[in-house]
């Protein structure tokens, strides 16, 4: 690395602002100069106005908040289901060798099927309302939940397990009172990856099979060739994704502080 140049906070801030100014400046100039018709490249302020507009004026039936709410409900269901099934499965795989040997190969094979490739079956089996998108989100969120819990449970210090055994703990007690607490840091790290993938899969699922939600708003905006609506939707997706990640990151930090690194 180059010698760390002495950079004051002001210089850092200045350069950062210059970067942002360049980005928005080039965008605005390109839009104003008419390099592309405004329909395709609206200037930043039009997008901002559209964003505000969408929060109180319904587009394809719902306002932006209502679209986000229905997306978030699907996200919550798919993610919740993945955690509810994935964490116990991971723990059981970490403890019972036979289960590990049976499930792991299936898992390795299924992992290569991209979550989005489940869309046709999701629509066929569960329709396009809630069930279809939830299945797609689930397939995206499930693997990190299982893998991280499994790793956490598999690498618990053996003498902890031996101590519990000596004290007469059964399978159930060992899983719940030794493996689970010891794998918490690893599980939380998995949850963060899982939530990110779930949110992405949700957007993908809603682009293809849904009749409401933030992804649906994007598709309809695209069909109307309203780039400002598409961009507003993208910003909303980015904000929600960022908030979800920040919350889980805070949880992860807290766990690391009290429990040590994963």
């Amino acid at each position, binding site marked *: *690395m*180059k010698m*760390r*140049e002495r*950079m004051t906070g002001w*210089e*850092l801030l200045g*350069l*950062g*602002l*210059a*970067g*942002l100014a*360049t*980005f928005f400046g080039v965008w605005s100039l390109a839009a104003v100069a008419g390099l592309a018709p405004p329909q*395709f490249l609206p200037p930043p302020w039009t997008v901002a106005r559209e964003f505000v507009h969408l929060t109180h004026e319904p587009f394809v039936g719902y306002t932006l908040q209502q679209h986000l709410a229905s997306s978030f409900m699907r996200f919550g269901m798919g993610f919740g289901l993945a955690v509810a099934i994935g964490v116990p499965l991971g723990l059981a795989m970490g403890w019972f060798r*036979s289960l590990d*040997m*049976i499930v*792991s*190969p*299936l898992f390795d*094979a*299924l992992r*290569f*099927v*991209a*979550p*989005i*490739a*489940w*869309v*046709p*079956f999701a629509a*066929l*089996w569960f329709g396009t309302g809630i069930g279809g998108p939830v299945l797609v989100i689930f397939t995206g969120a499930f693997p990190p939940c299982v893998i991280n819990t499994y790793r956490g449970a598999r690498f618990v210090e053996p003498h902890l397990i031996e101590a519990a055994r000596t004290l007469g703990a059964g399978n159930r007690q060992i899983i719940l009172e030794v493996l689970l607490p010891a794998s918490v840091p690893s599980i939380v790290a998995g949850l963060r990856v899982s939530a990110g993938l779930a*949110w*992405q899969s949700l*957007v*993908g699922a809603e*682009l*293809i099979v849904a009749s409401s939600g933030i*992804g649906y708003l*994007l*598709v309809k*905006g*695209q069909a109307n*060739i309203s*780039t400002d609506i*598409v*961009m507003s*939707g*993208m*910003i909303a*997706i*980015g*904000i929600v*994704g*960022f908030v979800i*990640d920040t919350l889980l990151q805070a949880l992860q930090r807290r766990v690391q502080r009290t429990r040590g690194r994963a």
Partner: protein
Amino acid sequence: MLRLAVGAATFAALAVAWYLATSATHFIPPIYLPTPQEVWQALTQIVVTGYADGRLHQHFLHSCGLVLMGFAAAIGIGVPLGMWMGWSWRAEAFVNPVFLLIRPIPPLAWIPLAIVWLGLGDAAKVLVIWFAAFVPAVINSYTGVRTIERHVIEAAQSLGIRGPMLVREILVPGALPLIFTGLRLSLQACWTTLVAAELIGAILGLGHVLYQAGLDIYPAMIVVGMLSVAVAGALMTHVLGWIEKRAMPWRIA
């Protein structure tokens, strides 16, 4: 050895269960889950006569080609940018805020915008694949350069190694392990994005097969499409792993 046997037995048991549940007992109607024979027929159909405007190898090559193009473009732009950000604190301070702004938007969300801008053709797909691979390429190249030990660079500099030679002899090899980690992570994202983009609109490609099969309510072909996506993804991951080994012969895997 035991693991292998149990794994094989699991797959065999699953295949038998599939056969029993569909063909033998019609417990699950074929409209929800196709029978093994139907899947075999669908496979021969797409391989021999073609389905959704092309034969299997055409769809396959088309999708792989698009991923490679987007991926190569992302490496070509992302790696130098990331390394530059890792090298110069000023560059990092300049680029990072913009990057932080764009990063939370998942690659899939760029698909509608890409379609508005470039239509349903290949260009839109290459753009979204480029985007899916670009962010990890930048971040990992950046981190890769930052992890090079400082006295290695100082030693090289005191020996008079500068400019392009420093990049070629020190920075690239030093950052390479992390760069490959990033590429491996983003390859999967690239596939997901491509399949999604092809599901939304395409004339050829594995995602288009899935789309057409879903439209025709042809479950056997959906299975063939999903398997093809999985095989293509696995194949590319292996090729990347092979390149990784060749690119870093000094590392013992």
